[in-house]
């Protein structure tokens, strides 16, 4: 059970190192595709158990903890990296792929980490590597969003580190084990985890940053950070009831905000919050069915959410437009039908339409809520499903591919065309997997951490789901004439740090700076005075005395015109004009001799009297 194995994530780190130095576009492309394949081979070969255990201080670092839970997440992470690599194959700058490989590698590191030190190490690389996928977009907005993203994740990392250190202090252990909830240490660790899981109110980094990433980079971003957070929650915090409520709330929170968004990728980002809500909720319920559901939903979600981002990315790549207000009425269904078809596969998957993969995973979480008799939670998740189909399945595709022009005066020609072939291939693979898992769920169910005794394709389940979806469609069709799109910013909880930061800046550059300058002026006046007095050491004592006299004569600096003050002032000015010249003070050599004699006498007295 122990020993050492080849960790699959090593290939990503080697790939990231080699990619910049490999010569030629063809070799770079080959390497990009080879890395996920090698990692997948390593993943299939790795046996269950704990490996690569390294003694460190008084603890043991476990680099590879392989069990069903870590494997199911790792499989989808590696598969996704292959799809993402194909999707990004046309990108010329290799830096993006280096960042993506570091990001994927560190996520796998988190997934296999058996202790908190290893976990934290990879956790931080994840944040540092992924931010480059945002910065590579190279717009001012993406640079700013990237900094905000990084700061939030560094803050989350600090919470995690604080929790780990507290655990070491109280339990003398760095073990990352389930059932550790309770106590201050676990609160900090949980807080660190839910920042990455984008649980409200710590979620706004996600819809803030993901739409700002590069077209290909955002596809990677959607898959890893939140889902690795779901994994660590599954591992460490299964059955923590507060997560169930937070998950159900965030599932609805996401769909409400998504409905008023017009930026395609921002709308989809809010649906990541919503979908991760199902997973967090499943973790909170904590039964075998619910935990299976969370893992299965993470697996399916990665595939269809990446496909949604890939399809919208293809639209942005071809048209250069990312908002529904700019795309509506441009007739993209005529010029980009393949992308529309792929988008709709993903949209049906996320909406849990039967025969698509969301149907077989989302229903597990909902059934888990039912089985555990949480009626309200079950209804909340149902409501989130309604909103998901509304925004992702109906609103977005309607306005992006069909719709009427929002600004009729902008008579732009019909845009569109085919995206690069590699993009289409990547979309096709993801689309195939979405349908394949929907049609043949056992392929996924076999990978889940617990034995599955769940059948999604019952008559009642299919009929009820179709009834719900079709009546959502009816409601949408009725309300459609009233739906208007506006280019607006919708405030979210990031308002607190975005506005708070500028308030802090104003406070620092205003009152704080004024205080600083005031203090500096006061101190430099004293320094000036000392320098002024010290110009002539011989007159210094007299000047100091006169200065004190002047201070007293002026009534401690209050009075201005007192006869006495004028006299003292005149004397002061007179004396201060006296420059130090060696010649003027040569005569009193005797002063020195006298002082020496005086001190010697004093010392002698002291010596004799002791």
């Amino acid at each position, binding site marked *: 059970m122990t020993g050492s194995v080849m960790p699959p994530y090593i290939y990503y780190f080697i790939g990231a190192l080699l990619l910049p130095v490999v010569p030629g576009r063809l070799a770079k492309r080959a390497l990009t595709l080879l890395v996920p394949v090698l990692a997948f081979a390593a993943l299939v070969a790795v046996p269950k158990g704990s490996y690569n255990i390294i003694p460190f201080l008084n603890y043991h670092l476990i680099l590879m903890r392989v069990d069903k839970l870590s494997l199911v997440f790792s499989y989808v992470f590696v598969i996704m990296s292959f799809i993402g690599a194909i999707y990004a194959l046309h990108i010329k700058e290799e830096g993006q792929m280096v960042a993506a490989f570091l990001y994927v590698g560190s996520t796998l590191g988190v997934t296999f980490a058996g202790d908190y030190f290893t976990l934290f190490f990879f956790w931080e690389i994840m944040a540092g590597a992924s931010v480059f996928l945002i910065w590579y977009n190279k717009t001012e907005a993406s640079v700013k969003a990237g900094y905000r993203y990084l700061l939030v994740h560094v803050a989350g990392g600090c919470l995690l580190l604080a929790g780990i250190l507290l655990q070491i202090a109280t339990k003398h252990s760095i073990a990352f084990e389930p059932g550790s909830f309770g106590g201050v240490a676990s609160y900090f660790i949980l807080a660190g985890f839910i920042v990455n899981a984008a649980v409200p109110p710590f979620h706004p980094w996600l819809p803030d940053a993901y739409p700002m990433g590069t077209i290909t980079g955002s596809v990677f971003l959607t898959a890893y950070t939140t889902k690795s957070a779901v994994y660590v929650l599954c591992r460490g915090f299964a059955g923590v009831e507060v997560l169930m409520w937070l998950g159900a709330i965030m599932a609805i929170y996401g*769909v409400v905000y998504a*409905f*008023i968004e017009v930026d395609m990728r921002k709308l989809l980002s809010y649906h990541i919050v919503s979908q991760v809500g199902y997973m967090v909720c499943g973790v909170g319920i904590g039964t075998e069915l619910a935990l299976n559901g969370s893992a299965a939903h993470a697996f399916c979600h990665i595939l269809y959410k990446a496909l949604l981002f890939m399809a919208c990315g293809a639209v942005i790549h071809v048209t250069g437009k990312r908002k529904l207000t700019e795309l509506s009425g441009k007739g993209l269904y005529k010029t980009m039908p393949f992308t529309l078809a792929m988008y709709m596969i993903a949209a049906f998957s996320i909406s849990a339409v039967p025969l698509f993969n969301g149907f077989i995973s989302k229903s597990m979480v909902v059934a888990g809520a039912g089985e555990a008799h949480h009626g309200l939670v079950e209804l909340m998740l149902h*409501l989130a499903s309604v909103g998901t189909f509304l925004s992702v399945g109906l609103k977005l595709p309607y306005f992006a591919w069909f719709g009427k022009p929002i600004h009729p005066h902008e008579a732009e020609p019909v845009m569109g065309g085919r995206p690069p072939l590699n993009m289409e291939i990547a979309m096709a693979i993801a689309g195939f997997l979405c349908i394949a898992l929907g049609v043949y769920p056992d392929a996924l169910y076999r990978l889940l951490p617990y034995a599955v005794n769940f059948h999604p394709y019952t008559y009642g389940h299919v009929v009820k789901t179709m009834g719900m979806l079709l009546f959502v469609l009816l*409601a949408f069709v009725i309300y459609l004439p009233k739906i208007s799109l506006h280019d607006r910013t919708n*405030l979210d909880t990031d308002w607190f740090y975005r506005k708070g930061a500028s308030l802090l800046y104003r406070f620092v550059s205003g009152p704080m700076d004024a205080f600083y300058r005031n203090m500096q002026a006061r101190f430099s006046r004293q320094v000036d005075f000392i320098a002024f007095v010290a110009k002539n050491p011989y007159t210094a004592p007299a000047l100091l005395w006169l200065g004190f006299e002047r201070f007293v004569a002026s009534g401690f600096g209050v009075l201005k015109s007192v006869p006495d003050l004028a006299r003292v002032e005149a004397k002061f000015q007179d004396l201060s004009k006296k420059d130090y010249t060696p010649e003027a003070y040569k005569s009193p050599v005797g002063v020195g001799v006298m002082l020496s004699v005086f001190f010697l006498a004093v010392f002698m007295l002291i010596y004799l009297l002791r």
Partner: protein
Amino acid sequence: MTKGKKILFAAILIIVVALDFYHPGGAHEVHFWWQKIPGFDAIFGFLGCFFLMLFAKKVIYPLFSREEDYYDR
């Protein structure tokens, strides 16, 4: 939508609700009373969808929507 499509759509809606009244091979697993109501999911979908659209447009949007360059000023 043409009249033919409207009729087709209405027919599908009616059929899908009607199918929920009849459950061959035992009922769907029931945990709560509302799961016994035939067509509950259809009603829930319809009303829920309206609730979400109106809540987002009439409550959240007026409260939290600002000019596009809100954060840049």
